């Protein structure tokens, strides 16, 4: 398995090549091609590694080199290759490859073309460091690295004020989570004396319940920031200021899933604390529902998809909170495919209509861009959870399992599914069907995108269709990493603790075979209820935005308070602004008046005045006469001599 080191370092080499020679030698097409080759190599290797690990179900812990020694513990740069990291790495590299290919078309003509691909390669390198880490420090390195890459890419068009502000916002909001995460890492190091996952897992039974809860909650704080869960979700919709491939890659498919991945990676830690799992569950459920309601009323095409990302990440966290880590990870994989597809289709639309983001100004685009429209429709159906698309096989099991475990969670997830179907089809009908609202001037230029943009779309759409049928394969594949009874690297004591933690999901039996699951949900009342909710959402969107039977404006006016609540995104931004921005401003103003003007200026000016008046007095002694100075010196000698004599 030694060849695995190629996976993270191939994008790094691409990054170095592009940043050194990008502007002078490679220029526009070549730097994109270098980046694509870099990530494609690691995709090939990771798929091969995925194949190998699926044969054996084993795990490999490769220590590449020691990063820094820390007392008895050496932090090493290493690769932990087991089914979980193999799946995540494959998702990252394969989806990245297609997004890179798409980006070569999307970024055409941009003056900073090499810089863009350098940043993208850097991002992939950091993300792979994160996924392949076998210890928390390397994970944190990748974690911060993707944060940096995300900051650079959101603010890629730095001359746009909104973009640089959004980049800063993303960075700062992430800092809150990262701070918690770092505290969690430190606490883990104090508690366990090591940061390697495998050692930590085997020491879990020795540690008290509250300590492990604190570690899990602090680490989850980082995941909340990175995966944009409530209450740290505000940065993600604004992050859509970046170029669309960035939104697809970072803010939909890979980086925001890092939180989900991290929770699954250190699953034994979370599983050994009831409170931590409950926190994950409720935060995820709330995010899934609230983000879906926010998505209902947005008009910015990318923001609607961004809110759906928030919501779907909430589903993943909810699955993990329910103890269904395998379902969570499977949803992550299928979501990465269809969300990247949705974003890339939106990007294709934006290129065609010259970056008009408002869906109210689109319409009838299917006529001009049939491939984009068809692939978008596939993505939307997958997101809505309509069989036989992948979203159905990954999302519906979570909702069904929730029904058997916790009905409050079920209600929220179930209604969230209906809302999801509604808003994504609202977007679809507004953008691709319905009346003709396009600016005539633009309409004359609208045309289908070039092949280097449509081919990734088609590939991803195929993935979104077929991936769901591999449900059983993925479940079995993930078993050595996420099923405590089959995790080879756990000690027997830890296995018992983890099994106990996951008992909440023990009575849940979701059919794993895709075909049987389909039959099951088409026959059981619960399955039908969920399916018809999604179809009902689509039908409502069809009535309101395609046929215009129900006037959306009338709806908005009738339910005005609710509409305003959703439209203003549950006032999260306003509250944060009031508390943090305005509160800080007020505090600063107070400190300025009380501390600066009164205290500091008082001291400074006062000391100035005092020394000036003292100076006025003292300059009387400065006669300029040698005798006077000498007399003063004599007095000084007396004073010091007396001091030495009588004080010592």
């Amino acid at each position: 398995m030694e060849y695995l080191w190629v996976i993270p370092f191939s994008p790094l080499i691409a990054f170095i090549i592009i940043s050194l020679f990008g502007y002078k030698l490679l220029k526009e097409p070549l730097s994109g091609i270098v980046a694509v080759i870099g990530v494609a190599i690691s995709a090939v290797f990771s798929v091969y590694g995925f194949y190998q690990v699926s044969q054996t179900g084993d795990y490999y812990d490769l220590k590449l080199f020691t990063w820094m020694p820390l007392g008895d513990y050496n932090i090493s740069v290493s690769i932990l290759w087991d089914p979980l990291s193999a799946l995540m790495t494959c998702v990252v590299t394969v989806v990245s490859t297609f997004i890179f290919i798409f980006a070569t078309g999307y970024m055409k003509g941009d003056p900073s073309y090499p810089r863009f691909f350098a940043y993208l390669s850097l991002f992939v390198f950091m993300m792979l460091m994160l996924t392949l880490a076998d210890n928390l420090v390397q994970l944190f390195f990748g974690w911060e690295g993707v944060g940096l890459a995300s900051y650079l890419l959101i603010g890629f068009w730095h001359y746009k004020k909104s973009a640089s502000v959004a980049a800063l916002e993303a960075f700062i909001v992430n800092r809150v989570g990262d701070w918690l995460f770092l505290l969690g890492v430190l606490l883990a190091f104090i508690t366990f004396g090591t940061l390697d996952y495998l050692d930590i897992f085997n020491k879990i039974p020795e540690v008290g319940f509250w300590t492990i809860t604190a570690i899990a909650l602090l680490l989850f704080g980082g995941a909340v920031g990175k995966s944009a869960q409530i209450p740290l979700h505000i940065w993600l919709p604004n992050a859509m200021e970046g170029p669309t491939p960035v939104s697809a890659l970072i803010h939909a498919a890979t980086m925001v899933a890092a939180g989900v991945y991290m929770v699954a990676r250190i699953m034994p830690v979370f599983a050994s604390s009831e409170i931590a799992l409950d926190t994950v569950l409720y935060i995820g459920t709330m995010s899934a529902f609230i983000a879906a309601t926010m998505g209902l009323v947005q008009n910015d095409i990318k923001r609607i998809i961004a809110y759906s990302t928030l919501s779907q990440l909430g589903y993943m966290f909810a699955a993990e909170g329910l103890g269904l880590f395998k379902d969570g990870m499977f949803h992550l994989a299928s979501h990465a495919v269809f969300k990247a597809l949705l974003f890339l289709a939106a990007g294709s639309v934006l290129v065609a209509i010259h970056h008009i983001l408002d869906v109210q100004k689109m319409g009838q685009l299917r006529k001009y861009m049939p491939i984009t429209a068809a692939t978008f429709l596939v993505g939307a159906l997958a997101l809505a959870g309509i069989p036989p698309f992948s979203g159905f096989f990954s999302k519906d099991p979570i909702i069904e399992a929730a029904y058997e475990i916790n009905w409050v969670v079920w209600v929220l997830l179930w209604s969230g599914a209906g809302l999801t179907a509604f808003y994504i089809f609202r977007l679809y009908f507004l953008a691709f069907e319905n009346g003709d609202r396009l600016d005539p001037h633009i309409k004359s230029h609208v045309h289908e995108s070039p092949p280097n943009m449509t081919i990734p779309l088609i590939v991803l759409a195929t993935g979104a269709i077929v991936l769901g049928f591999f449900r059983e394969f993925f479940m079995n594949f993930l078993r050595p990493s996420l099923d405590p009874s089959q995790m080879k690297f756990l000690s027997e004591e830890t296995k018992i603790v983890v099994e106990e933690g996951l008992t909440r999901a023990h009575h849940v039996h979701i059919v794993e075979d895709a075909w049987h699951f389909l039959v099951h949900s088409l026959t059981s009342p619960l399955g039908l209820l969920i399916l018809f909710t999604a179809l009902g959402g689509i039908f409502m969107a069809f009535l309101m935005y395609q046929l215009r039977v129900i006037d959306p404006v009338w709806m908005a006016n009738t339910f005005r308070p609710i509409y305003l609540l959703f439209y203003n995104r549950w006032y999260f931004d306003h509250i944060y602004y009031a508390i943090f921005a305005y509160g800080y401003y007020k505090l600063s103003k107070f400190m300025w008046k009380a501390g600066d003007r009164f205290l500091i200026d008082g001291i400074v000016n006062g000391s100035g005045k005092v020394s000036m008046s003292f100076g006025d007095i003292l300059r009387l002694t400065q006669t300029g006469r040698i005798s006077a100075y000498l007399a003063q010196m004599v007095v000084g000698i007396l004073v010091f001599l007396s001091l030495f004599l009588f004080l010592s």
Partner: protein
Amino acid sequence: MSIPYEYYVALSGLLMVLGLVGVTVRKNIIAVLLSTELMLNAVNIAFVAFDMKLHDVAGQVFVFFILTIAAAEAAIGLGLVMAIYRLRKDVDVEKLTELKL
């Protein structure tokens, strides 16, 4: 020896203080220099007295150096007095107030 060395040191202190007073009160700059010679001599007495008390000769070596420095100081100091006199036609310390702006 009937006279304790402490008396020598006290005498040195008296001469030193007289020199200090002279440096402070005299107006003629040459007299000021003479007073510094007095102070140097006071130090010399103290050095030799300490030497005899502590059974050493390092102090006397230092007195030798002080004599050397006193010679140098007198040469430079008096040269300066000459220069000042040539410049201002006066040797009154009170009138040398260039230190005050």
